[in-house]
């Protein structure tokens, strides 16, 4: 049995831009901004980086083009190995995973992962229409339903409410509590896209986008970039006294069964569930509800976050509503979720999100989370979902001291 990645890799520097509708920033600007902060934080020079991975799905290909060349030529990386990786919204985590494996394998000493997204050049409010951008492939454009991301996740809510006997009204309130909590945290975060508190009532009464999800149940789209610099664990203390260690890197991809086989129940996400099981085993976590101090999960939609709490074993199946309504996942709760505002409020520049999640966990573990600082966090977990509930790739990363 392979020993896994636990304590083999350390994060020695990170950078993250403001996320938002950054009309005056090009994707190149964003890459440089994240990169500068990261190497300053690590106190290294560009020439110390020996390999780099860029996370970027379809949409950044539209702004920047394919391959690793955009990253390499923008940062003027000196003929080192550079690769662009893609797994939809989990691309940032994918880049981080690749960089970690490189240093753990001894292929190089120091590697960088950078995620970037420039969604606001597409001209859409929301994700660009699937028919033009081939995120789902040409055949799926013909036989796949004409649908949007909110709608595909909304179908989780319909089934979840029905299965657990939650009325639409109570269900909407539960979802609203998820978003209200994230808005509170985002308001405390100077880098967040949305920095305004919103009430449960405002959220429940907002216009419907895809029933039962309303405007405030859906994260917006943002521009931004984030970067991480990693090295082998035994080298970390050369760079700083407070490195953050990678405890687990797991992903799980759909087998196709959720979409075409009738076992899948549309009240959980199978990929999250399986990746989490493997992640906890790899990190030696026996009781996630007690041991995972904080998390950044993929709250593209409020229902996603709710269901993810169960998939991550933070809440028992069918019972997350109790935990949400009692404030367990609030900033001052027992198991804070989205301390930086999450996708909902920090923003969702797709290629960057996976690395931004790690950025918050990193800052929290170093005691640098400012007004959002949690008390003595031990383990942080990031959950990054590329795709839709029934056709996804999910990444789970656990970091700690």
């Amino acid at each position, binding site marked *: 049995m392979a020993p896994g990645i636990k304590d083999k890799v350390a994060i020695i520097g990170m950078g993250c831009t403001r996320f938002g509708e950054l009309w005056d920033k090009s994707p190149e600007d964003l890459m440089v901004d994240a990169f500068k902060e990261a190497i300053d934080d690590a106190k290294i020079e560009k020439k110390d980086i020996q390999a780099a991975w860029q996370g970027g799905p379809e949409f950044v290909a539209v702004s920047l083009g394919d391959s690793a060349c955009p990253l390499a030529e923008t940062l003027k990386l000196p003929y080192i190995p550079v690769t662009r990786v893609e797994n939809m919204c989990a691309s940032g985590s994918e880049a981080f995973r690749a960089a970690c494996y490189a240093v753990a394998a001894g292929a190089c000493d120091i590697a960088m992962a950078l995620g970037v997204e420039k969604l606001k050049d597409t001209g859409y409010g929301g994700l660009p229409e699937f028919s033009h951008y081939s995120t789902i492939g040409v055949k799926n454009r013909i036989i796949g339903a004409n649908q949007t991301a909110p709608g595909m996740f909304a179908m989780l809510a319909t089934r979840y409410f029905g299965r657990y006997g939650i009325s639409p009204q109570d269900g909407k309130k539960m979802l609203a509590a998820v978003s209200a909590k994230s808005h509170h945290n985002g308001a405390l975060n100077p880098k967040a896209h949305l920095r305004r508190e919103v009430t449960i009532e405002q959220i429940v009464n907002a216009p419907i986008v895809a029933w039962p999800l309303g405007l405030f149940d859906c994260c917006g789209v943002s521009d931004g970039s984030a970067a991480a610099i990693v090295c082998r664990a035994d080298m970390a203390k050369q760079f700083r006294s407070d490195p953050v260690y990678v405890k687990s890197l797991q992903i799980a991809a759909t087998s196709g069964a959720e979409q*075409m086989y009738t076992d899948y129940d549309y009240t959980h996400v199978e990929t999250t569930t399986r990746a989490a099981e493997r992640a906890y085993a790899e990190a030696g976590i026996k009781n996630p509800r007690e041991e995972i101090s904080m998390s950044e999960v993929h709250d593209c939609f409020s229902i996603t976050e709710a269901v993810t709490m169960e998939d991550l074993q933070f809440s028992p199946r069918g019972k997350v509503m109790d935990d949400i309504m009692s404030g367990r996942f609030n900033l001052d709760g027992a198991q804070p979720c989205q301390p930086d505002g999450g996708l909902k409020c920090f923003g969702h520049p797709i290629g960057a999100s996976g690395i931004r999640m790690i950025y918050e966990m990193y800052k929290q573990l170093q005691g640098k989370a400012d007004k959002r600082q949690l008390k003595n966090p031990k383990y942080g977990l990031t959950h990054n979902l590329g795709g839709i509930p029934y056709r996804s790739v999910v990444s789970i990363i656990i970091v700690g001291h």
Partner: protein
Amino acid sequence: MVGITSYGAYIPLQRINRKIIANATGWSTSATSLPGEKAVANYDEDSVTMALAASTDCLTGFERNKVGGLYFATTTPPYRERQSAGIITTALDLRPDIRAADFTDSVKAGTHALLAACDAVKAGSEKNIVVCASDCRLGRPGSAQEVIFGEGGAALMVGDTDVIATLEGSYTLTYDFTDQWRADGEKFNRIWEDRWVRDEGYTKFIPEAINGLLKKYKLNIKDFAKVVIPCIYLREHQGITKALQLDEKQVQKEMLTTVGDTGTANSLMMLVAALEDAKPGDKILVTSYGNGADAMFFQVTDHIEKARNRRGIKKHLASRKDLANYERYLSFRDVIPMEAGFRGEVGPTRLALAWRERRTILALCGVRCKHCGTPQYPSQRVCVNPKCGKIDEMEYYRFSDKKAKLFSYTSDVLAYSVSPPEMYGVLDFEGGGRYAFNITDCVMESLAVDMLMEMSFRRKYVDSVRGIHGYFWKAVPPRA
């Protein structure tokens, strides 16, 4: 003996009351005072999809492999060059080695196709030919034709075994009488002066065709249980039946006030309605009108009792929903160019892929694993059953005729639709298999988890950059 062996029909769900049209356009012209309502094809329907629906009804209980031909009659095909009948045969999952033909350019083409099919079967060239007809003609806003035209489809199977109504004879008239016309490339129909159309065409040709038939076969009009005369003018329709001295019960009820003038499908839909109520021994006289007139007569046999389980006209007439908005009606056929926004743009169609995947796309065929028996859509080589996973042990499996339970669904205002909101859901098919489809012809309030749905062939998108109409299947609440 050769004749009709099965029948089917289709009427779109939505009906618009003619008063609504009059209210919207009456300021511009003195709109016709035609009463009743007309059937309106949804934005995702066209002559091909409606003909397919009628053909499916007609093929109830019939093995698709045994169909020997398909003739499609329309004056509104989606392409000027690309056989519509071929799209229909592929979607019906028929064999490729059969005769398929489009009959077009005249609203009389419906009966042309029917007679040609009977001739072909009689000559022994083919067996079991499906004749289907449908039209989506447009009159300009404010025109009388806009009020008169309606949309629907009919299908009849022609064969020589278990015939339910034998073709006994026909008499056809071909006249280049240009009362209504539409040149190549034009969107809207044109019409000459109504008075001339009625006096010189409609009220002359139909009696001429009928009398020609009666004389040819030495028949008396009293011999007929039902006489089908397409109705394009209410008063003149009555006038013709009176002049022929028909009993009221002999006159097949007009559909102008409930569906509208459906072009090539007009007479054939009335024929289907007649067959629904016909008894063994009945003689049915059918006429059509358009650049002349056709007349033919059928003799109903004992086998008619076996063909009662069709949706036909009755069930489709009863299954209806009011379309209360004139502007929305205009948007269905792109008569008013509504703003679609960026989300309305359609990416290019890859025809080589569409050809390779034609059974998956047009016929909604997936596969069933021979090892574990799991049906799955779309076609796969590796079995999706987590406990199986066998490679290349698949057989073709048709999903288009299967009902399905609605596992989950949503109603989406963000996704682009000509007629928002866009609805979609996850369907679990009876017998196995699951996939997500768009849902049409309903409102969200009528949907519920676990309700039964059926599949409907629709025009899913139009790739206007490359001039391609993209067809696929959507889920609908069962019509009957």
